[in-house]
C-alpha cells in the first residue's frame, strides 16, 4: 500500500496532463503509471526526468527492447516489485 496519496491526473496542470498523454502513448497503455504521477508531484523534477527518460530509453546503439531488459535487471537486483 502506498504511503503517500498519489496525485490524480486531473489535479495536474494542463501541460502535465499532456505529458501524461505522451507517456500513455509511449507505453501503449490507457492509464497513467503511478511513477509518472509521483514524479510530476514536483513538476520541474517530473518534466525534466521525463525528458531524460525518453531520451535514454529510445532506440540508439541499443534497442528500446534491450534497454527494457537492462531496466528489468536493475529492478531485479534492487528487488523492486514495482
Amino acid at each position, binding site marked *: *500500500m*502506498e*504511503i*503517500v496519496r498519489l496525485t490524480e491526473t486531473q489535479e495536474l496542470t494542463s501541460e502535465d496532463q499532456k505529458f501524461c498523454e505522451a507517456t500513455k502513448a509511449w*507505453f*501503449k*497503455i*490507457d*492509464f497513467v*503509471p*503511478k*511513477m509518472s504521477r*509521483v*514524479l510530476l508531484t514536483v513538476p520541474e523534477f517530473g518534466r525534466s*526526468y521525463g525528458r*531524460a*527518460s525518453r*531520451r*535514454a*530509453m529510445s532506440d*540508439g*546503439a*541499443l534497442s528500446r527492447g*534491450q*534497454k527494457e*531488459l*537492462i*531496466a528489468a*535487471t*536493475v*529492478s*531485479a*537486483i*534492487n528487488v*523492486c*516489485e*514495482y
Partner: protein
Amino acid sequence: MAGVTHALNSVADGLRMAPEFVPAAARPPLVPLPDAFEPEVKTVLDEIAAFYAMERPPAVFRWMSRDRIFLAGYWGATRAAFSDGALDRPLKEILALAASMTGKSDYGVDLHLREARRLGLTEQGLTEVVEVVQLFNTVTKIADTLRLEPDFNPRANGDGAERAPQA
C-alpha cells in the same frame, strides 16, 4: 533526493570513480588464490580462460578451483547462463554489467565492462547502458520508498498492457 542520490552513487561506485576527497585504496585479495592445478582442474580453467579470452581465468574461478567438483559444476552453469540463447552473449554481458553496477560490485563491473566491450559494446552503447542503469536506480528507489504497488499484472503475457488490480 533518495532516488537520485542512490542512482548517482550506483554510477560513481559502479564505474569506480576515484573518491573526490580521499585517495582510493588498493584492494589486495583477502585470501591467497591457488596458482598450481591438477590436470583435471587445469582443463576446466583453460576452457574458462578461453571463454573470456584471457591468459588466466578470472580470479573468482581460480578461487573455486580449491574444490574441483564445485568448480566444474558452477562453471558449467555459468557457461550455460552466458552462452548465446534467446539472448545473445554480448547482451548478457551488458545485463551483467548493469547488475554489477546496481549491486555496486567493483569486481563485477570490471569483468563485465571488459567483456561487453570485447564483444562489441561501443562507447555510445556504454553511455546508453549507464543512462538506463541510472534512471532505474532512481525510480526503483522512489517506488520502494513510497511502497508503490505495481501498475501491471506480472503474469500478463505481453500481448497487451494488462493493468494490475488497483486497491
